[in-house]
């Protein structure tokens, strides 16, 4: 396979939120990957900074795993470059590998090996010796709650246990960057909650975490920034809030609940320039104000009360993340 051109050819995308004073620990530039004529990833560029938790969202086959495998040095890009902690993953994969922890979506179990032996092997392979090795293994087993099943054979583990073990292995060498591919897949609700707590704990330690999933709500709660990929193209990079309000333009949408007959509100709207009825329901209506400026919104509310509309609730309507994503995809 031919290598990508040298890095730094393409500038970072304009929508990537830069973190002042920090150099990116993950830098992806113009990344593309083609498999026998099918372009799995197209010109993907983004930066992630130390301590950031980023969600990588897209449908199955959108290019998440391909991108992450290239980042993990397990595949080669057709064009573009990836740097992990300054190390180019194509030219210096060995240097990048020791700085990253990769948790694949499909975890392969070694035959004839116990949980402890598995972690002990990886601790040895990461270069830990003597008491340091024993300490790392014990710490990781404690952290991932594996101590009680240390003597279990790997091929007898449940999905949740295997995921915890895989995460434990990923953390053994204390990597700066964690690439987690669908880590919560197959976990029960309790394990999912624990996993979210674990991710925040790791982010608190300054680790940069990229988590892929196709479930938006799952990631929105624990990620600082979200990357949306569709058809191999990065369509959005920003916070969950920025996605929810993306495409709204200058208009602001508010839910207004009234006491009594909601028709009073509808009649009021008809008389107001700059206000539009989006949707009427039993308790009131969803209104769109021409301007989202706080002064303008406040003036509308004041006028509504002055005109005798019995308002009991007035709040900004939040779009569901999934709806926002679907709308964005339609536009793309």
């Amino acid at each position, binding site marked *: 396979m031919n290598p990508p051109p040298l890095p730094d050819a393409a500038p970072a995308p304009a929508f990537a939120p830069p973190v002042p004073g920090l150099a990116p620990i993950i830098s992806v530039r113009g990344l593309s990957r083609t498999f026998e004529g099918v372009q799995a990833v197209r010109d993907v560029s983004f930066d992630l900074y130390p301590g950031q938790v980023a969600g990588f969202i897209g449908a199955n086959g959108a290019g998440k795993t391909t991108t992450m495998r290239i980042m993990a040095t397990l595949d080669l890009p057709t064009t573009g470059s990836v740097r992990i902690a300054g190390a180019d993953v194509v030219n210096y994969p060995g240097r990048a590998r020791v700085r990253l922890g990769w948790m694949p979506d499909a975890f392969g179990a070694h035959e004839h090996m116990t949980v402890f032996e598995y972690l002990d092997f990886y601790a*040895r392979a990461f270069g830990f010796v003597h*008491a340091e090795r024993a300490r790392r293994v014990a710490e990781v087993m404690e952290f991932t709650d594996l101590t009680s099943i240390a003597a279990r054979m790997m091929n007898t583990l449940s999905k949740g246990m295997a995921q915890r073990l895989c995460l434990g292995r990923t953390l053994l060498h204390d990597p700066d960057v964690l690439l987690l591919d669908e880590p919560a897949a197959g976990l029960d609700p309790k394990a999912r909650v624990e996993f979210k707590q674990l991710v925040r704990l790791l982010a608190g330690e300054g680790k940069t975490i990229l988590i892929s999933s196709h479930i938006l709500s799952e990631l929105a709660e624990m990620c600082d920034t979200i990357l949306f990929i569709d058809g191999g193209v990065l369509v959005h990079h920003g916070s969950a809030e920025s996605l929810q309000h993306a495409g709204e333009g200058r208009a602001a949408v508010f839910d207004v609940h009234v006491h009594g007959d909601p028709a009073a509100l509808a009649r009021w709207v008809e008389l107001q320039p700059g206000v539009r009825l989006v949707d009427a329901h039993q308790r009131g209506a969803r209104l769109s104000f021409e301007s989202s400026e706080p002064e303008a919104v406040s003036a509308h509310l004041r006028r509504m009360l002055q005109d005798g509309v019995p308002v009991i609730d007035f709040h900004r309507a939040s779009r569901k993340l999934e709806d926002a994503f679907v709308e964005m995809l339609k536009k793309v």
Partner: protein
Amino acid sequence: MTAADPSPPAPALPGASALPAGNDFPDWLSPMLVKELRQGVRTRVFVTMFILLQVAMLMTVSLTLLVAANGGDTQAGTGFFWTVVGLPILFVLPLSNLGSINGEIRANTLELIFLTRLTAFRIVAGKWFASFTQCLLFVCAVLPYLVLRYFIGGVDLAVELAILGWMLLGSAVLSAFAMGMSAYPPRVVRALTALFIMGGLSLLGPVVDVVIRGATPGTAVGPALIVGALCCAGLVTGLMLEVATARIAPPAENHSAAMRLLAVGGFLVALVLGLVSNGTTGVTFYTFAIAVAVCAVGLCEPARWIPSLFRPFALRGWGGRMVGRLLYPGWYTAVPFTLLTFAAFGALLRHQHLLGSASASIWFVALLGTLLLPVALVQALMPRAKRALVFYLVICLLSVAAAILAMVCDNVLKTRFETPVSFLPLAALIVQMDHSSTVATARFTAVTCTVAASALVLLAVTVRAWRRARAAEAESLQLAVAPPLPVHDAPVA
């Protein structure tokens, strides 16, 4: 932290007391060896073979005791004894490596090991050494019975120990061979299994020869031959381990250079042994076979233009770049390497009077043509073909079919047909085995023409590749220096 500098005891952690110590293997052992041994001795194959070996050994010794008590020939069971010992050491355990690497790939476990500090070579070597260690365990298990045979059966203990040693060496080579094969997809592995067994047996040929001659009183094997046999075993082992490594290593690693340097090492061994002793022509042939295998692997390699591959050579100036042009991975550097290798071995074979006859010359040139012609056709006609191997096989099949046709013809037709067929080097190679053939000079001319044409075509089509290589060399000098390894981690034991 190092093995010589033990750390203070780790602080007690909650739950840590429930954990095993993990000190069943010392830290200085390769992590892969530890893993493979932990897994390997639990496999059904190992346990079954070990128990069966013990049962068979007990039976052999009991029978020998019985025969000795009745005054019979106590060495009657020698054949059975060595068959029982040889079966696991030379066949079962080496063959069990055939699924070693590919099995890990299919189980999705190898990629995670790549992401540690273990290099691809350390992974492969660790697996191979674990297999060899298992053989060593079998040998150790056999030793008490060997001593019993000495006391009861009156065998020559030194000879038997020597045979056991050579068997162990053969096992190491065969294990490496299986390891190299195991890096290929299962279908190919299955197809090559037969070749493995045949190749293994032929590799054992000189070993058996040395053993027999060494074990026969008055015909002691010269030290040069023993050194040659050991070197050949080492070279084959190294080559097969590198073949496996190259299959799984990141594209930024240059394992072609290691393989080609092994071929050069083989040439130097043959040269030195040839100068000090007259009886080492076998070593020359084996090292030549190794070099041919290296050339074949190199000619089938795709070109890679990753700048870091070129950097170590480009940094050493003009000389480094010249050396690099023989050692960069890819078919385009394998072409000059192959030509130089054949020139060097040609001179050595001629010096040792092994290339004097017309028949030997045809073999030599046809072998070169067999390597060059398919590459020339593929690179000239379908340089971007995904399945070049299929094309190779078609050429080989055509050559074999043409050769068979030429060989089964009656004498008149044979004379007419053999020369045109000889333009296909593999066909010429096969036809050369037919002793009734009489057109050696014409065949030599035909096959030489093919080799010359192939070489010319290859040199012409490599021009573009050389241009890219020069660009990659220049690009590699602009490459940023690799960032240092993180200091918070301990070095690899």
